[in-house]
């Protein structure tokens, strides 16, 4: 399980208060063959908000997200989530603690149906172990039935009910995105890490995904989102963190950022 926090006093993040950050990074670094993709990034992600992470290509946004989720190890620095130091905690334990990510390229389980994709990410299924599979069949079935109600509601909300039994690999790109977002939601995230959720998605669907994200935020889910499309960031994100060459260039609302010449020069121009 998660290790107790041994973080220094200035880098602690404790849950409970709305103003206390849910996620904190301190001097986070990632080096690939001598190249510093992320170079000493310190950010706070506060609960109940959609925080945007923007920047030009190669700024280190996706690497940052991967380090937060634990799918890429950090070279140095510290990550605190929900008051605990998770820097060396493996990805699956971070997910179980509520730090759940989606991927830039859709990563649905192709040879599983949409409903199975949703059910598989629910934590705490009594049938999700070897002994549970052999000896807790009834409990697992009951658990599945309950989760099917939740999954049914999500499918309904995302207008995917008619695809419940479709193999995820047979869906369109936009539908796969939805499956991935629904699957992440089924994992009961405290913090949802989204890597370009609108990329390659029909504009109409992008608007819908945005509406869903606002609904999620209002329901109390915290989101950290990497996004290229600034109009989307404008609508959804507050605050916005700008990364450039692996470092934090600026942070604030989009209006604030537009007034900063260096940010405009680095990224917003055009």
């Amino acid at each position, binding site marked *: 399980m998660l290790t107790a926090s041994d973080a220094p006093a200035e880098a602690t993040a404790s849950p409970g208060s709305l103003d206390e950050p849910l996620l904190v990074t301190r001097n986070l670094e990632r080096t690939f063959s001598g190249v510093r993709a992320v170079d000493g990034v310190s950010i706070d992600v506060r609960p109940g908000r959609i925080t945007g992470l923007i920047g030009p290509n190669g700024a280190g946004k996706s690497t940052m997200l991967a380090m937060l989720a634990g799918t890429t190890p950090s070279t140095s620095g510290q990550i605190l989530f929900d008051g605990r130091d998770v820097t060396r905690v493996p990805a699956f334990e971070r997910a179980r603690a509520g730090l759940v990510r989606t991927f830039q390229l859709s990563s649905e389980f192709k040879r599983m149906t949409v409903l199975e994709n949703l059910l598989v990410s629910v934590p705490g299924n009594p049938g999700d172990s070897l002994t549970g599979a052999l000896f807790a069949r009834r409990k697992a079935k009951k658990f599945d039935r309950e989760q099917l109600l939740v999954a049914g509601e999500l499918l*309904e909300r995302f207008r995917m009910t008619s695809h419940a039994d479709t193999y995820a690999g047979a869906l369109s790109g936009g539908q796969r995105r939805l499956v991935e977002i629904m699957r992440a939601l089924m994992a009961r995230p405290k913090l949802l890490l989204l890597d370009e959720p609108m990329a390659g998605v029909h504009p109409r669907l992008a608007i819908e995904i945005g509406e869903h994200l606002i609904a999620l935020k209002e329901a109390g889910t915290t989101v950290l989102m990497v996004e290229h499309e600034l109009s989307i960031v404008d609508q959804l994100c507050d605050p916005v963190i700008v990364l450039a060459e692996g470092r934090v260039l600026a942070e604030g609302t989009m209006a604030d950022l537009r007034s900063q010449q260096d940010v405009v020069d680095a990224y917003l121009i055009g």
Partner: protein
Amino acid sequence: MSNGTLYYLTTIFTYAAVDMMACLGLNLQFGVSGITNFGFIIYQAVGAYVAAVLSMPGDAANGGFQTYIGGLHMPFPFPWIGAALAGAIIAVPTGLVVRRSLRPDYAAVAMLVTAVFLNTFVNNFRPLFNGAAGLALVPAPFSGIFNSQSASYQVYYTLFALFLVGLVYLVVRLISESPYGRSLRAMRDDELTAGAIGKNTDKMRMTILLVGGAIGGLSGAMLVGFINLWAPSAWTYPETIVLIAAIIVGGRGNHVGAMFGALLVPVGFLEVTRYIPPFGPPGLVPALEWVVTGILILAFLWARPEGILRERRRRLAKFLPVQGPPPLLGSSGVDS
């Protein structure tokens, strides 16, 4: 029915049971969990050796013409239980080899190399299991009580072997149709993502290697109890390729398909080729069997990669509430 025909049939069906059981174990690993285990035959070999040395008397018996460890002369079923345990134990180092840090294709090669290494080692290190000559005079279960050469014994042996296959089928089915099986299939489809939604893939892979190892070990015990001998030439690395071919042909991820494949490839196909009259230089026909096995794998991978009996689609929509809650947001549909 003549004794000759009965002997032929019991032999064929016992071999079928052994291959079906091995295919069920390998299918759980390769078909359901996505672990390309090119070293699966090791588990069967270890199971056979352990069942042999647990049931045989000390190596001074029979004039001491064989050298081997163990020789505990244990009664049935302990040698078979020992074989299953040994199959599971030998899977532990395999599991450590294929931890996530090793790419799956490298891991497959590592397992193949391990199979080659172990075969060469057993072949050349005589004190362990009598080297290349192998072990002979392995007692059949209850051979002290019944005449293991009698026709009725052979029939009961075959029926018991098929019963065990049924039992193993139920176990692997329980696993693959459970929420745990769902997680295994998620690991097969995309391991990184499975980790990102909270699955401990290292632990899952190790567990399935252990379970598959135990099944492989049991299949080895079943085989050695019937043929009463076991040698390195019986478990060279291409034997795993035959099992993988059976699964690809039968239907990867489908347990019935895996058993069907076992009946078609190692049993049916190799049995049919026995009736081809010998032609060309000696050894040509057996060599051609391997060629045709290879072509069979390629043909199915090309034309019908899902196999004859494809993996069943788990349809769960019928369990959804009939009328869902009204959509909360938006009004348009998704693009398709």
